[in-house]
Each structure stands twice: as C-alpha cells, then as structure tokens.
C-alpha cells in the first residue's frame, strides 16, 4: 500500500507508530478535510481490538475506533453521551467518525470531548512500551496540544458509569444538522441525602480546551440545595471572572453571555 499502513493487530500498529510518522486514521472525517499532501496514514479502522464497548468495573470502556452510530445503538452508552453524539454532524459522518478521532483531533469544539470532560472520563494510551491511563482533563494541554507521545496511540475511553443521571446538556450551533458548536455546555449534579456531592460544569468551543473550574465546583460540595441557592449569585459572578474566552466563529462577548445563561439555567433547572 502506497502512503499507508494497514496493520493486522494493535501490536503491529504500535510498532508502525514507533518507527514511522504515519498519521493514525480512525474514521477519517476530520483528517480527510485537510488530507495533507504527501501524508501517510496508519489505518486503524479495521482493528477489532479498538471497536469494543464493554463494562469494566466502574467504567464503560469504549474502543477508540467505535463510531458515533455504534455508540447510539449500544445499550451500554449513557443517555448524556448519546444526546451529545446524536447532534454531531449528520448520519454519514456519525457512521464513520470515532471517539478516538474526536479526541485526537484536539479541538475544544469536539462534542463527545465535552461530555468526557464533565464526566471525569479517562483515556487509555498504548505504545510498544506499555499502557498508561490519563484523566481527560489532563490529556488536553492546549489548542491541538495533547499529552500524547509520538509512539503512543489512543486505544480506549473510560466513561464513568455513576453520577451521570442528573445531567444538563445544550449545544448552540448555527443550525440543526452539520453544525459546529459555537458554545456547548454540560452540567452534572449529584445529590445524596439532601446534600450536594458534586457539581460539574464544562464549557466547550469557547477556548483552547474545554473549560472546567474544579475550585468553583467544589464551593457547592456538601451544601443543601437551599444553601447552594443562597450563594448562587456569588458563584455566578466568580464564573464570570474566570470565563476569559477567545473569539472564534462568533465574538467572545456572545460566547460569554451564552455560557453564563446556560450555567444559570442548569443550576436553576436542578433546583439551585
């Protein structure tokens, strides 16, 4: 094969990754838009080892070459992830686009990545030297910058099973189908015995990476909904200060206003 490698196993793929600069190819939907002249691809789409969806302890493990359509058809994928993935592009793109590709492309606009951030998902990486597992939030270092060594491949996504049911998700795009997110937001609230265990709020498409502010989220931990309501305005203004956004397809001011509205709507919908 000219300008391409088609490994028969993950092990073979890892060996090719170590010795060549071939670009990992899962679904191709992002890569083929640019299709850089002279590029060589490492085709991972035929590797069954990267196509599973299965339970693994407290997590659902999703192989990096699982397509969005496959996830939508699986009983193991949580409705929050399905809601986000269902809004990606259109059927033909969802049929080929993958979780690994969405992450590997390194964009803060990636719709599945927002959900991985808010859930506290983990990413499993592999190389010929072995495997390592990193937190999604640590994996994104900046715009198109990932904590990924040249010899490593993204092999698995670990999505937590618990704490996802009380969710809020909104994607703001220019139209229904084929829309790139202008702002996306996902929120989670877990309440036990009347007290907030954790609040999580993730903002996508508004900066170099998806944004989460753990210290602000922690301000609600241990509080009742009434106690949380009492400090809501203070919390919102703290978010207002921290959300320093970049201009993209739309102005920074617009993005900020939408982020604040969605955060407020999320808190109010959840009784805060």
């Amino acid at each position, binding site marked *: 094969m*000219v300008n391409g490698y088609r490994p028969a196993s993950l092990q073979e793929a890892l060996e090719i990754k170590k010795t060549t600069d071939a670009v990992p190819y899962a679904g191709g939907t992002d890569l083929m838009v640019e299709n850089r002249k002279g590029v060589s691809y490492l085709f991972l789409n035929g590797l069954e080892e990267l196509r599973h969806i299965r339970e693994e302890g407290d997590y659902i493990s999703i192989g990096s070459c699982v397509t969005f359509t496959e996830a939508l058809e699986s009983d193991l994928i949580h409705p929050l992830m399905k809601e986000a993935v269902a809004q990606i592009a259109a059927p033909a793109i969802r049929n*080929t686009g993958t979780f690994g590709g969405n992450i590997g492309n390194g964009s803060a606009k990636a719709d599945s990545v927002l959900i991985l951030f808010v859930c506290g998902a983990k990413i499993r990486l592999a190389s010929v030297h072995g495997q390592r597992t990193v937190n999604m939030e640590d994996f994104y270092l900046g715009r198109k910058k990932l904590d990924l060594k040249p010899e490593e491949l993204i092999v698995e996504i670990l999505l937590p099973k618990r704490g996802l049911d009380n969710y809020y998700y909104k994607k703001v795009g220019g139209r229904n189908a084929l829309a790139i997110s202008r702002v996306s937001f996902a929120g989670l609230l877990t309440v036990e015995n009347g007290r907030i265990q954790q609040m999580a709020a993730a903002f996508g498409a508004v900066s170099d990476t998806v944004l989460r502010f753990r210290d602000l989220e922690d301000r609600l931990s241990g509080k009742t909904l009434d106690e949380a309501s009492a400090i809501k305005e203070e919390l919102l203004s703290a978010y207002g200060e921290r959300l320093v956004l970049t201009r993209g397809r739309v102005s920074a001011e617009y993005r900020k206003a939408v982020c604040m509205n969605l955060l407020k709507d999320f808190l109010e919908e959840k009784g805060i």
Partner: protein
Amino acid sequence: MEAINFLLNGEETAYDGSAADRLLDVLRDSFRMTSVKCGCKEGECGACSVLMNGILVNSCCVAMGAAEGANIVTLEGFRKTERFAVLNKAFAATSAVQCGFCIPGMVMAAEALLSKIPNPKDSQIREGLSGNLCRCTGYNAIVNAIHIAAKEGNGLW
C-alpha cells in the same frame, strides 16, 4: 507494490494509487463512477454519498486505504435493483429532481434510511437526509418521494 482491493458495485476491483487518495476522486477519475458528485470535499454536503459495507458514508472523507476489503456501492450499482426502481418512480412522481446534482447522494441516503427504518416518520426522513444539501427543491418533494417509496415498496426494505 500491493494494490488496494475492494468490491465496487459487486465487482472485484484493484487500485494501485496512494492509500491517502480520496475514495471520491478514485471513484470518479479512475473508475468513471460519475454519479458520485464533488460538492465540498469536507463532509458537509452529502453529494458524494456512497454505501460502504452497507453504511452511508461521504466518499470525500474516506481514504482509499480505509476502503481495503470494503464493499462499495454507488448509484451505478444501486440502480440495477428493484428498490431503486421504486425510489426512481417516487422521485419522478413528486418532481423531486430539479438540477439533479444532489440526487445520487439523496437516493443513497434514502436507501440507507429505508434499510434501517422501512416505514420512517417525517422527522426520521428529515434526519436521514440531514447530511445531504439540496439548493433547488426545498426538500419537501424529496421527503414526500421517500414517503411514497416506503409505501409502494412495501416489503422491499
């Protein structure tokens, strides 16, 4: 040099060019499958839609290396089927074709949709066609054609 082998409309086919070439370009330029239209080359318009292993894909976003061993069906192959005859008649009945550029992609998207959902609701048809842009018809005639095809082709899908 190892060629890329795949099935094209049921025939064993070999391509000995680059694995990074777009399926779209190869189908048109090397194999003269000119029903496959190039509208955007970025997966936004659906004019280059084909079936790959029975699944709808944008051929502009598929590299040839990913098509190794795949079963590719374009409109040239699909038009030999009974299902096509039903869709063809329905598209004509509602005047769903104007300039025609999007239509091969629309028909492949309709086939993919009906294979999954033989009796789709209006919203399901619109979702199924959401990746296929048409600048002439305003879509309603195409949606109606698919309703008719689903009804007339009862049992075919």
